């Protein structure tokens, strides 16, 4: 082979392989398989929690609107850090902040949220410790997890708490989850209960696809896995079709519905967690009431 080419090839082969590659590849393989089998684990979990809770309180949208006429009781709900798991070693970093809601009149609701937060925080910590051990046994590497929460909305009516998990194994992945509480009525809101029927799945999905295409048109750096948007490698990716019934959402301070997707869910990794604000006029016909979203 030509000397120059030989030299270039040698340089190429000398590109250093980071320690994390092994572990990251295994994680990606495992994660992909799990997702394929189970759909999104966290979302499923949230949905189940919401169902149990709503069932337990025997509450319906109709009942929620009756309750709305009662005097305001719970506008002083607070969110604070209940506990924190920390690992701080040279190569292994974990910081898991577990939130807790307090001064929520509805104690059952507070309890069920706080139990969930604690359980998931603990689980995250346990998984981190297990991963760390596995990595150590395989010759070591870097590993990090950073989890916490942010209050997305806090007004007289709505409290939206977003919790994030950032896994760092060389590169990072981010998962967001939201809980939105109606402070006046002291109920946890789910996406289905905001709408009259299931047609929201389609309406909201179509609007999101429209927004994706508009964003891609406006700026070529925006890429979403969506049809009719000039993706040259369409056959390689599963395109976004529709949101799930229990898609991650919150209600922002302007009373708008915001739909959120995790990293990799509808776009390449570099796009990170993506959010779409759904214009209220698109969904106003199918909303149960304009109390939360307006």
């Amino acid at each position, binding site marked *: 082979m030509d000397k120059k080419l030989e030299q270039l090839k040698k340089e190429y082969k000398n*590109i250093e392989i980071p320690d994390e590659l092994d572990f990251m590849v295994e994680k*990606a393989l495992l994660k*992909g398989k799990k997702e*394929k089998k189970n759909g999104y684990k966290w979302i499923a979990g949230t949905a189940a929690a919401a169902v149990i809770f709503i069932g337990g309180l025997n509450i319906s949208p109709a009942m929620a609107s009756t309750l709305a006429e009662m005097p305001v009781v719970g506008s002083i709900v607070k969110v604070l850090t209940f506990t924190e798991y920390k690992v701080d070693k040279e190569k292994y970093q974990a910081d898991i902040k577990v939130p807790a809601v307090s001064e929520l009149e509805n104690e059952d609701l507070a309890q069920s949220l706080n139990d969930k937060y604690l359980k998931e925080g603990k689980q995250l910590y346990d998984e981190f410790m297990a991963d760390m051990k596995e990595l150590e046994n395989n010759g070591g590497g870097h590993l990090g997890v950073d989890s916490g929460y942010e209050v997305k909305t806090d007004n007289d009516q709505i409290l939206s708490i977003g919790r994030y998990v950032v896994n760092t194994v060389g590169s990072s992945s981010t998962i967001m989850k939201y809980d939105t509480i109606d402070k006046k009525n002291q109920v946890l809101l789910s996406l289905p209960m905001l709408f009259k029927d299931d047609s929201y799945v389609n309406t909201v999905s179509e609007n999101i696809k429209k927004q994706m295409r508009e964003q891609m048109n406006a700026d070529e750096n925006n890429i979403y896995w969506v049809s009719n948007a000039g993706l040259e490698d369409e056959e390689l990716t599963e395109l976004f079709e529709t949101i799930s019934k229990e898609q991650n959402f919150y209600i922002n301070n302007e009373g708008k519905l915001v739909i959120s997707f995790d990293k990799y869910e509808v776009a390449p990794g570099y796009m990170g967690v993506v959010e779409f604000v759904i214009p209220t006029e698109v969904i106003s016909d199918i909303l149960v009431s304009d109390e939360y979203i307006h």
Partner: protein
Amino acid sequence: MGTKNRFNHEELFTSFIRENKENFYRLAYSYVKNSEDALDIVQDSIHKAIVSIDSLQDLKTLKSWFYRIVVNTSLDFLRKHKRVSIVDAETMEFISSGSEDHYENIDLERAMDQLSPEYKSIIVLRFFEDLKIEEVADVLNENVNTIKTRLYKALKLLRIELNDEMIKGAN
């Protein structure tokens, strides 16, 4: 039958990824030039591949199929981060003219980095990853003649002379 087929696909895919992960990493790195982004691209590519593995008709094409995912993911990334600098032939001529003097390797490496992605992909896949010219064409979704023409051009820009056998990879 269908399930079994899919199972085989996934098993094969997993071992293929494990065996070649360092190649994929280097390939991604050759575009983005830093470790964190290269890891991200490998991870992204595996994710995309698993999600769409059912669309893979023939396992024989697994290799070029996955290389294609890595290349496209890398290009997507570059497009997003605008780290591509495309250099015309004249500038290229100027850069590679230094290759006679003391700094030969540095200039050569720089010349390589200055190649536009479409040229660079071909050099990397054909000579560093040792794919045959037909496979390169498959990965880049072009016909063999187009790839050959570009390859000659790329080698010329790098001032490298090869015989025909070397070009085709008839090994």
